[in-house]
């Protein structure tokens, strides 16, 4: 019941933020503050040109090169703003985000779904003045496919690309042919950030080229300067083909320490503050008297965290055991106590507002009696009376592997340990640093762990994480294997109709719910704050579109 109400509120939130004022009367300023929703009035009024937008980031990206690095900060700073793609997610159409034209004015998909033809915009120039054409698209793909370039995170998207070229005698038509139909192939190609061919030709492996740190694109902002460890700045592109930006400059200031960042926010140093800590967002902003001077923003990107049981271990091979462990955790209490209630519960692999999710699958309630019953049924009973359940002489004793940096897991793990001890299951905790953690997880050298999956697009393929073929080299680190799920994933890959594919994903979700390979936990919001003078800001899964932002002078 609570869940339904919650869902409804979110739908309303989306409606209000996309269509301006709702008809339901005057906006409730306090509700907006409470829920972290930007007042609709901020998107109204006549934009003013000029000013510098200062954005706080907590960590510098390794480079400004999306071809060799997949850091989220690069995506945020560059895509749509500096480097553009042929098509882009329509940020106004939450939560489905269909594509809208960008560097391409239109496209055709052949009936067999294997050939894509893009018609490119004419008269577009790169930031260095060179003209844009289809040759740039082809060169970008070639650079990604070059085995000497560190571009694996992109290369896999084009595994089934047969060839790509410009049409004979027409540099403004790009034709791509694929070997087999795949629902993400078109989206991956259409939203690929395009780099300038004349600079790629000189860039070698990219790592030592100027464009590795000083990108050249076609977008509304052009790279200005990067002072290492301090700030990265962009200025308005006066020759932009589309809607020109309102602000003169965007400066990203690197402030690693959250307490220092908050102090600077109080001093009015930032227009947009990214990633407040939950208690800062929830309490400190108001306590510091910033209510009215800043707006709180709470937005959910596609992500969820989970607790996973390695099914190669005998303890976790039986679905009843996994269900029992799920019943043993009071996920709602954990959410409220450890996460300030800001995260949203989910039981779904996909974006929680997507129609690939089945809203009828509610999180399992906290039910220790049910957990004990299921463990008994599965044969895990305390035969030798030592307080720990056992089966065939093996005691139920396992290790929970966690990343030592995680604040959340530092609280969750001891709680888990305590709850499981009550059930007669012994859990030890092993904390390791991130570098070692990724290695151990990749090699399946763990009993149980917890991690978060995230994605920058709402459209995604669960193949990598849930298909049994991905146990060895992919991200199916818990070795989940179910022929029903395999078949649904394979069918969905070749299904280009969204509704039919989402139907398959809901079926898959039902199987995952019953098999309980993960304890699905929560989707984490991004908790940001914008200064009062910032107008035209709109959070979306594509982050913020800064060319629409302007600074009020009032």
């Amino acid at each position, binding site marked *: 019941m609570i869940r339904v109400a919650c869902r409804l509120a979110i739908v309303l939130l989306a409606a209000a933020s996309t269509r301006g004022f709702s008809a339901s009367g005057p906006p409730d300023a306090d509700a907006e503050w409470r829920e972290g929703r930007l007042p609709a009035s901020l998107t109204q009024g006549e934009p003013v040109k000029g000013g510098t937008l200062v954005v706080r980031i907590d960590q510098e990206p390794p480079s400004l090169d999306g071809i060799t690095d997949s850091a989220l900060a690069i995506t945020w700073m560059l895509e749509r703003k500096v480097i553009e793609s042929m098509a882009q997610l329509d940020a106004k159409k939450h939560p489905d985000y269909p594509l809208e034209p960008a560097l391409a004015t239109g496209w055709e998909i052949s009936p067999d779904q294997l050939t894509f033809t893009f018609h490119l915009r004419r008269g577009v120039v790169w930031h260095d003045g060179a003209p844009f054409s289809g040759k740039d698209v082809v060169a970008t793909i070639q650079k990604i496919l070059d085995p000497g370039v560190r571009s694996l*995170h992109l290369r896999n998207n084009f595994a089934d690309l047969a060839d790509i070229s410009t049409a004979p005698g027409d540099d403004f038509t790009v034709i791509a042919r694929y070997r087999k139909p795949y629902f993400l192939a078109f989206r991956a190609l259409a939203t690929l950030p395009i780099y300038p061919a004349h600079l790629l030709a000189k860039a070698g492996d990219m790592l030592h080229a100027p464009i590795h740190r000083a990108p050249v694109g076609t977008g509304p902002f052009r790279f200005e300067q990067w002072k290492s460890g301090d700030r990265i700045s962009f200025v308005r592109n006066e020759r932009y083909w589309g809607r020109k930006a309102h602000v003169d400059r965007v400066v990203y200031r690197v402030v690693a320490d959250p307490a*220092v960042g908050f102090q600077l926010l109080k001093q009015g140093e930032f227009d947009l503050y990214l990633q407040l800590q939950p208690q800062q967002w929830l309490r400190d902003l108001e306590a510091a008297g910033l209510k009215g001077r800043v707006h709180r923003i709470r937005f959910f990107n596609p992500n969820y965290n989970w607790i996973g049981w390695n099914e190669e271990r005998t303890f976790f091979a039986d679905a009843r055991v996994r269900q029992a462990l799920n019943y043993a955790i009071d996920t709602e209490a954990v959410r409220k106590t450890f996460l300030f209630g800001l995260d949203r519960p989910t039981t779904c692999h996909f974006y929680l507002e997507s129609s690939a999710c089945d809203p009828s699958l509610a999180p399992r309630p906290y039910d220790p009696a049910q957990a004990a019953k299921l463990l008994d049924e599965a044969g895990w009973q305390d035969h030798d009376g030592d307080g720990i359940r056992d089966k065939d002489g093996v005691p139920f004793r396992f290790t929970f592997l966690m990343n030592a940096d995680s604040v959340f897991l530092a609280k969750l793990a001891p709680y888990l340990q305590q709850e499981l001890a009550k059930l007669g299951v012994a859990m030890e905790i092993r904390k390791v640093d991130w*570098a070692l953690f990724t290695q151990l997880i990749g090699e399946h050298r763990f009993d149980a762990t917890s991690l978060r*999956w995230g994605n920058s697009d709402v459209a995604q393929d669960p193949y990598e994480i849930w298909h049994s073929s991905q146990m060895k080299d992919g991200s199916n680190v818990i070795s989940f294997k179910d022929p029903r799920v395999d078949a649904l994933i394979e069918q969905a890959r070749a299904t280009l109709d969204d509704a039919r594919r989402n139907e398959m994903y809901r079926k898959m979700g039902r199987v995952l719910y019953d098999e309980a390979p993960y304890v699905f936990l929560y989707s984490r919001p991004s908790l940001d704050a914008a200064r009062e003078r910032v107008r035209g800001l709109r959070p979306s899964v594509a982050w913020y579109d800064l060319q629409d932002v302007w600074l009020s002078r009032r």
Partner: protein
Amino acid sequence: MKRFLARRVLAMLATALGVTLVAFAVARAAPGDPVALQGDLGLRAGSASVQQMREYRRLMGLDEPILAGYLRWLWHLFRGDLGTSFRDGRPVLSLLGEALPVTLLLSIPSLLVGYVLALPVGIASAARPGGWLDRALSTLVFLLHSLPLQWVALVLVVWPSGLPIQGLHSEGTSSFGDLLAHLVLPLACLSYGSVAVISRFLRSSMLEEMRQDYVRTARAKGLSESAVILRHALPNSLLSLITLFGLTFPALASGAVIVERIFGLPGMGKLTFEAVLGRDVPVVMGAVALSGAATALGTLISDLLYAAADPRISLEERRGWR
């Protein structure tokens, strides 16, 4: 003197070889995989296959045996090339070139401030051991010494001092005054602890000297107490500070992780810390080489200072070389 120098330099080189070999072996053999860290490979949709991971390792030089890797690193070092960072592909030399000046800008003034403040404190404490001034100063100094750095730094940040709390320059200015203002709080953090250490060190070595016969003689011949302390005991006890200087010299180049992080100063501490977490072997090795060189140089300088300061020590005689 020349022979001494030559011997010391040779010993330094041997030490440096040992230090870098151990560091290289540890950095390469440490658990955790720089390839898996690269853009979260293997942990998200669209991840790498084993074969592609192998290809990355080859690109990074992680597939060769440790000793071969070390020799290659040494050969490149010999030619003045420290390699490129795994993380961002930039030359290690230019990363060090950016970080070292920031660190020196902090460490040299903080060392000076530390000595300048510690000298009067140490002398005053030693002049009347057990007196009210000594006890008051000792209490103060121990109090300072026991304050955790992280806490002090955060208090200074939150304190409405009006001083800048982030970076080295305000947006759009590069004046010397602006730079100084930015340095005040980090320097305060870096200095208060060393005042405590240096002043206690000086106090105890002064007390040692005060018990010596020559001090009694000086007193007996009727010199004023201040003359006894400043002209006789102090110069001799300063010798121990030379040792301390030799020991603290390498820290000048190694940076301060906590202070750099809080005040947003991209120095050696931040560079090294992030390189270790990211298993960025070339950068770790660059930092090790630099601090190894600083350690060796510090020892050499303090040896030479000893010879200059203490007429009893002759570098030739001490080792029986005539």
